[in-house]
């Protein structure tokens, strides 16, 4: 299975009916395609919409209905528009159940760095700092390594997005929960061993005796 699809499918299993969810640009956006049957969530787009969905069909784009990346989207019946203060009030005020973001680095304390690489890439933090600081659950969706180098480190070397501890990081190798005691290995990807995860991780991992495999399947729908 493609690494990104695997990650998206596993993240989708974290969402519960009725959740208000914000998906970051890129890999996190894929999560919407793999919601388990029967799970209905509301997607927020921080540029000002609750009730985002994919474009309903070709030729149905509206120039004033876009996501936070500027792409055309659809809206479910019952959707509502928000100004930027209300949108971020939902995020910062603890009204957003889940945020799913991409990551550059995660460390032993559960800190995330995902907004800049000094001297190389300075896109700006956009909404990321508010999302990581304010959402009830922070899920990081990223590949476990970049060019063979671990991204889960003892300490982030890139500027942090927030001091707030993330909830969980889902990679193509594992599901790792950030706890007050440290990073705990919760699941391994199909065909991946605990040892492989440990070898690809710089941070110290809390590893239980038995680590279950991610409950994802090859089918279109996760859990189906």
């Amino acid at each position, binding site marked *: 299975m493609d690494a990104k699809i695997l990650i998206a499918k596993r993240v989708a299993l974290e969402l519960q009916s009725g959740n208000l969810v914000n998906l970051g640009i890129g890999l996190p956006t894929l999560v919407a395609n793999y919601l388990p049957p029967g799970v209905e969530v509301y997607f927020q*787009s*921080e*540029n*000002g*919409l609750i009730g985002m969905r994919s474009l309903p069909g070709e030729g149905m784009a*509206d*120039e*004033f*209905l*876009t*996501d*936070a*990346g*500027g792409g055309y989207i659809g*809206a479910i019946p019952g959707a509502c*528009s*928000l*100004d*930027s*203060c209300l*949108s*971020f*009030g939902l*995020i*910062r005020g603890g009204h957003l159940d889940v945020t799913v973001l991409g990551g550059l680095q995660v460390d032993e304390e559960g800190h995330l760095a995902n907004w800049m690489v000094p001297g190389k*890439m*300075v*896109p*700006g*933090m*956009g*909404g*990321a*700092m*508010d999302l990581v*600081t*304010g959402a009830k659950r922070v899920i990081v969706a990223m590949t476990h390594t970049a060019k063979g180098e671990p991204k889960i480190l003892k300490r982030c070397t890139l*500027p*942090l*997005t*927030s*001091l*707030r501890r993330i909830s969980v990081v889902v990679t193509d190798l594992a599901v790792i929960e950030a706890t007050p005691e440290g990073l705990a290995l919760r699941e391994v990807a199909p065909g991946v061993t605990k040892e492989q995860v440990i070898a690809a991780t710089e941070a110290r991992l809390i590893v239980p005796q038995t680590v279950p495999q991610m409950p994802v399947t090859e089918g279109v729908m996760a859990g189906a």
Partner: protein
Amino acid sequence: MTGRRIRVVAAIIRVMKGASMKNKAISLTRAVEMIPDGATLMIGGFLGVGLPHRLIDELVRQGRNNLTVIANDTARPELGIGKLIVAKLVRKAIVSHIGTNPETQRQMINGDLVVELAPQGTLAERIRAAGYGLGGVLTPTGLGTTVAEGKRTVEIDGRSFLLELPLKADFALLAARRADYNGNLDYTLTARNFNPIMAMAAGTVIAEAKEIVPVGVIPPDDVITPYVLVDYLIEKERTNGR
């Protein structure tokens, strides 16, 4: 009715009539002529959506320079605020995101453009603080990050917050769906974004609406930005036929 009372009622009617008949629409050229070089501008919009495109084009045409721009982002080089950047009219940008505009990053690295990056929610609240008469906002966002550098931390009930100061501007340039001739505004879907917040935080507010409708067409419950905040509207573009 006494003579005094009649005079008072007549005066009230005159005032009301005056208010309801005032047409705030001016030409695009005149609107931009009011903006001096070196002005601080708040510009509504999110990656060009809900952005006053005609005002931007006219700023470029008239070559207003040395501008400070407060906005969510600098869009793309060929889009929205990106056009001001490419034309080198901006001295300083206070924004949350420049990732979609390589030209902004290039000018920033060269030292031609000062970029102050603010978390998006903090940016919105700093603008709101100015518009709502607050001395600042306390937010947990940015604590312990580069955003906190040089800022005061305040402890409230054992929790730390960053003190973020208000942001105001000389002019707010807004985009709306409809305006009535008095200046009441409504917006479309995700084109609302920063526009209603900026309407509160600038000395002079200029709104560019998709259409200008007679007073009363926008129902009171649908007005998002009340007319008292809007100083000028941009006249409709002349179109051939109906």
